[in-house]
């Protein structure tokens, strides 16, 4: 879609693109140790503008919710033991800036690749009995992505992509990384 617009020489007149997508998120690393369950709760949004031929500068944000109920179990530390049901939650909000490179295509399917840097806010909460233990952290994040758009005849295009949010360790939490598969819509605006 993006390459087609460039070829038509129309993109210079556009303000940019807005992408909203539904992410299915797979926890990785320390996040997977804490909540080893796929997240089907989330939303992702990106705003971009072409700065060079086939290169789009963009900013991104979103919200992914990871959740798991740990059944009744005993947790030991030294001579102490505590048992109960745990409800585990992690809310992740990436705030990134980067670029997308639109690859050449001769049909309606337009592949792209992207890279973004920024920060990710992660809020981890464990409900244990009547008590809640919470930790949150802002972590440096690098996000590569690959995807493909399907340009419709007029207006928005469909998008299918994959992203990997690589979050780095901070003082309070190890890096809360995860991988997403996104299904969304690309809206050009300023036409």
């Amino acid at each position: 879609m993006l390459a087609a617009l460039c070829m038509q020489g129309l993109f210079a007149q556009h303000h940019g693109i807005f992408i909203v997508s539904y992410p299915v998120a797979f926890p990785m690393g320390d996040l997977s140790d804490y909540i080893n369950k796929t997240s089907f709760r989330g939303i992702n949004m990106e705003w971009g503008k072409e700065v060079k031929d086939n290169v789009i500068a963009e900013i991104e944000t979103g919200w992914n919710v990871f959740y798991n109920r740990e059944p009744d179990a005993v947790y030991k530390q030294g001579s102490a033991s505590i048992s109960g049901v745990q409800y585990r939650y992690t809310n992740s909000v990436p705030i990134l800036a980067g670029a997308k490179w639109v690859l050449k295509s001769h049909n309606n399917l337009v592949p792209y690749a992207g890279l973004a840097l920024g920060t990710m806010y992660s809020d981890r909460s464990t409900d244990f009995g009547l008590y809640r233990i919470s930790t949150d952290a802002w972590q440096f994040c690098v996000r590569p992505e690959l995807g493909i758009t399907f340009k419709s005849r007029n207006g928005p295009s469909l998008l299918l992509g994959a992203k990997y949010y690589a979050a780095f360790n901070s003082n309070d939490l190890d890096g809360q990384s995860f991988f997403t598969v996104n299904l969304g819509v690309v809206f050009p605006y300023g036409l």
Partner: protein
Amino acid sequence: MAIKLTRLLGILSLFLISGCYPKGAEYVEELDLVYTNYDPQYDFAGKHTFAIPDSVIEITGQAFEDPDGNHKPDFLPAASAQVIVNQIRQNMTSNGWQEVPKLSNPDVILLPSVSTTVNLYYYYDWWYWGWYYPGWYPGWGWYYPGYYPPYITGYRSGSLFIQMIDHSSTATDGTIGVKWSCIINGLAEGGASSINSRVQSSIDKAFAQSPYLKH
């Protein structure tokens, strides 16, 4: 067409966001916690007899004031106390311990006690008093809960403490060591039979996660 699709997706996004809140506990028993700790240096295997009172102390405040002047603490009602004492007694016996009267020199003594806490949450908006002095100014707040709280809720939580003391030894400063302790915490809400059932299963859990008490 593009504009209508945008609005539709905007509405769908709201549904996506509203669906992002997972559920928490649905049943009262899911909020029960059982904590145990013990002295790893203590020789549990070498102890065989225990004593336990028939009453359970009810801890009502930070200081023991003896308001009724009977020189005794407050106790749980007998019906509730029997549930707790019998369940402890049953678990100790199953673990190979023998109950003896308190004056027959038991190796250990078990001391159960309970406390309850009422947790209240209320919301009060200072705006209700904005018409009066000093007026409705941004940044001013009426922080004293004056007229009426428009939103109030609360719950009662309870804790059961069980301490096992070594009757046969006393430290040089006169203190008696607690060799095994247990705290059971949960909502003190619901009917008596429901609470009793949860207390019994929690006591069973406390002994199940203390295999060093088994002979």
